């Protein structure tokens, strides 16, 4: 019975983690390029008190034995890379990836990846993200450029006022064997991990990579209604686990009062 206290405690801490994940998703319901997460749970090891098939007498055997579980644990918080909605911005340097892939930017000396494509130009004319970190490989736009077009395959063309091409360059994107294993480092950035595998460079629209969409941004893939439903379910489960603790407490109280 005392074990129930600890079992219920694992349930409460699991639901509390679940709520943390939901809160973070909801907080980022409007963040460009944000990918929602989900807590994955699994049951803890079982204590086998009587193994199934143990002999109960000379000619009978237990059909199922006694197995008592010890609770739940969070096994991972998985990022779900489903496509977010597109928002039209008409800003020529806003890019959305339709399908798989990430932009690579250089943050200090570290390469990080992002789905957020709200680019602009820095003081030296290089394409950079909202944080001022340059897109990799670097793309430089000359000052004389008037129009910039980027096609679905990532081909960037900067034209001057006479319509002559000043620069043509391809924006490459990157993909991972398991994007769910990427590490979120905040500010919409992801870092590869042992679970995600190495980044693979590619041209948009080839090898299963997504295509680029100029003048659009990818919104967060959080579905507010879905998160609300998960929140209600999580709250109820939390409550139920807390009731177990209360019940054990009452039962122990009863047991202590047997001798009046």
């Amino acid at each position, binding site marked *: 019975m005392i074990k129930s206290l600890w079992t219920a405690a694992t349930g409460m801490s699991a639901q509390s983690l679940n709520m943390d994940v939901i809160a973070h998703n909801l907080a980022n319901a409007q963040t460009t390029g944000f990918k929602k997460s989900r807590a994955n749970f699994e049951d803890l090891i*079982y204590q086998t008190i009587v193994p199934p098939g143990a002999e109960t007498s000379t000619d009978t055997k237990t059909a199922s*034995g006694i197995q*008592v579980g010890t609770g739940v644990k969070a096994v991972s918080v998985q990022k779900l890379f489903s496509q977010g909605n597109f928002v039209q911005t008409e800003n020529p340097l806003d890019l959305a990836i339709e399908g*798989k892939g990430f932009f690579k930017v250089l943050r200090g000396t570290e390469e990080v990846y992002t789905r957020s494509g709200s680019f602009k130009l820095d003081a030296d004319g290089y394409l950079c993200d909202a944080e001022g970190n340059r897109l990799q490989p670097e793309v430089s736009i000359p000052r004389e450029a008037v129009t910039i077009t980027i096609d679905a395959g990532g081909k960037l063309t900067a034209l001057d006022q006479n319509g002559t091409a000043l620069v043509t360059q391809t924006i490459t994107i990157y993909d991972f064997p398991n994007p769910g294993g990427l590490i979120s480092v905040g500010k919409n950035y992801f870092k590869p991990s042992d679970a995600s*595998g190495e980044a693979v460079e590619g041209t948009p629209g080839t090898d299963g990579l997504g295509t680029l969409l100029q003048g659009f941004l990818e919104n967060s893939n959080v579905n507010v209604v879905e998160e609300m439903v998960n929140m209600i379910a999580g709250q109820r489960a939390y409550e*139920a686990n807390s009731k177990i603790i209360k019940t*054990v407490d009452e039962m122990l109280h009863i047991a202590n009062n047997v001798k009046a």
Partner: protein
Amino acid sequence: MRIGSYAAALGSIEQGKRLEVISNNLANASTPGFKREEVRFTDFIYEETYSQMTQGSVKTTSNPLDVALVGDGYFKVQTKEGIFYTRAGNFTLNASGQLSLPNGALVLSKKNLPIKLESENVTIDEKGRIMENGNEVDQLAVVQFDPSVKMEKRGFNLFKPSQEDAKEQEANTTIVKQGSLEEANFNIVEEMTRMIDTMRAFEAYQKTFQTLHEEDRQLIRRTVTR
């Protein structure tokens, strides 16, 4: 002390154990593919636990690597400790692109081999056939056991048949549903009711114990004063 006192004590111990089982169920309210445990009292001094294998409700997640089983059967997974079976279909890809459970166990195909995928963007049909860009690349193993085979829980969402020689067979009638997860197969309210029932039964045993104790006391008192 009379035999009744021991019976009451045993009764409360059993109810305590039942509460442990209920608390484990409730702790796993958000565990995909979890099957609730139930305690069965076959006669007064003998109890056993078993997993109730009824279908859990299926929740739509729209995640391409979430699959739910509708009907009898299990997915087959390979861990370091050997082959296990699971109803939890919250699959993911590992660093080498193999389909696996969040805990790293590799999901096996019909040919008993790990499944390697190019990306998450796959279609999985009702038979568990995995299609990448319209081409069938592999098929998930979905197996079942004879109803007489008892499944033992190993934790980590894994099951194993309790008989070593249990033969698995293809679950032909079971439907694989992509973009969905099977939830734990109990509802919280029902489980709470069982919890209250357990507590009241426990209380009743304690009252029995107290009553017997009180009877003994009065008996002793009367014998002495006579």
